[in-house]
């Protein structure tokens, strides 16, 4: 398929806008953020495989046949109704206790205020404690916390400052801000902190941002495997 190259910018623009409806993903302007969380969930699982973990999909009843992810932030201890349990990933390695990977869960900061974690990796023992006692996980239980901004969420300086507030309250071991695209202001804001805030922009299939995130998470998980508690 080729597009004739003799068109003026105005003609091209008109054609572009005319082609848009057929190319647009269904429901994406409203639900896309959760698709992005699922994608990042996948990146974390691939990093886990590369770091030598085995990966399984699990829900409140055992192995999961359907990957059922939250479409809005929810509570980790709530398993979901029978037959419609929320799925998480279980990462296992011989050296250390298993980890769980959740998407869109509420977490509690040092201030006892609730926050939302788009992707959250924590030891299974801590997740079980939450399920047993109907508790929300503490931010400092987390091995990895990812704040994700798909194109459907705005990424302004306000969101950048919000993330700085989040990481000061949620003392997860590894916190990463991830976005499809972001302006230079947010990037400069993170880079200007001491120590710099971990962030990856352009995290999309096959892009450098994806490779970078994969490597970062892989390093975190390797460190977890090799560390002694």
């Amino acid at each position, binding site marked *: 398929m080729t597009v004739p190259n003799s068109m003026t*910018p105005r003609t091209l623009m008109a054609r572009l806008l005319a082609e848009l409806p057929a190319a647009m993903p269904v429901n994406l302007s409203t*639900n896309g953020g959760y698709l992005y969380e699922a994608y990042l969930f996948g990146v974390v699982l*691939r990093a886990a495989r590369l770091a030598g973990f085995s990966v399984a999909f699990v829900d409140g009843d055992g*192995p999961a046949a359907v990957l059922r992810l939250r*479409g809005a932030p929810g509570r980790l201890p709530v398993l979901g109704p029978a037959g419609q349990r929320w799925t998480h990933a279980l990462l296992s390695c011989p050296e250390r206790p298993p980890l769980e990977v959740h998407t869109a869960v509420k977490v509690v900061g040092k201030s006892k205020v609730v926050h939302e974690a788009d992707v959250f990796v924590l030891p299974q023992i801590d997740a079980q404690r939450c399920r047993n006692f109907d508790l929300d996980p503490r931010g400092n239980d987390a091995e990895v916390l990812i704040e994700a901004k798909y194109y459907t969420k705005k990424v302004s300086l306000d969101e950048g400052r919000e993330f700085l507030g989040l990481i000061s309250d949620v003392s997860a071991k590894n916190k990463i801000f991830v976005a499809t695209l972001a302006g230079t202001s947010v990037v400069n804001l993170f880079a200007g902190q001491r120590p710099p805030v971990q962030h990856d922009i352009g995290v999309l299939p096959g892009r*450098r941002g994806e490779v970078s995130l994969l490597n970062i998470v892989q390093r975190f998980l390797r460190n977890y495997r090799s560390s002694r508690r």
Partner: protein
Amino acid sequence: MSVAYFVIGGCDTSQGRRRLTHNEKGARVTEDELADLLNELEQGLIDADLSILVDQERIAATEGKAEEPTVEDIEGVRQEWALRGLKRPSRPRADDVRIRPLDLTERLAQLLDLLEVAIGGSYAIETHLRDDLRAALEESPDQEFTPQDWNGQIVFALPADSSFVVSGRTEWSLPDQKTLEQREAPVRRVILLINQLRNEIGIHRSDYLELATDAGLADLDPEFPGGWS
């Protein structure tokens, strides 16, 4: 009417809206045409239910970008002071910057990048998500879960305690692969048109969208426009 040409990306918008812009490839667009194109794209995206892209572009435009004073800036001030019979002005410090709003070219470039992510990035995420997740599960030595336990279905649902309401729907699934790939041709056309618009106007694609040379992650087709296959 005499016209002056200047290189896009380094244009000085303060010197009138009648000048032509000009890039290395010889494409020429007047500032008025640029403004019209930006308005047309913004309105078209709002009509296509993608106003979030316009919001982000406008936020980025307002937040602006940090710019260091150039040698020409410094020389200009020095000459002006000399003409006025003043002493030499002090030199800017190494990390002195000014924050200026994005110009029309930068805004249009940003909006086209966002649109490419919305269309191409979403398509790539959707079409690769199952395979990526499956790849993380494969070769797992875990005895309780086998990759075959997962039927490939990905469901997003609103938690019962969620205050979010999305068009009355509480659950949606990632379409099957065949349905997703029906968008391939329109996605190709849109990305081609975006690229052609960039060429005609003389603007660059964000580095964040460049394919990683060492990607090897997703099975992406580099021949697909933008590498979003």
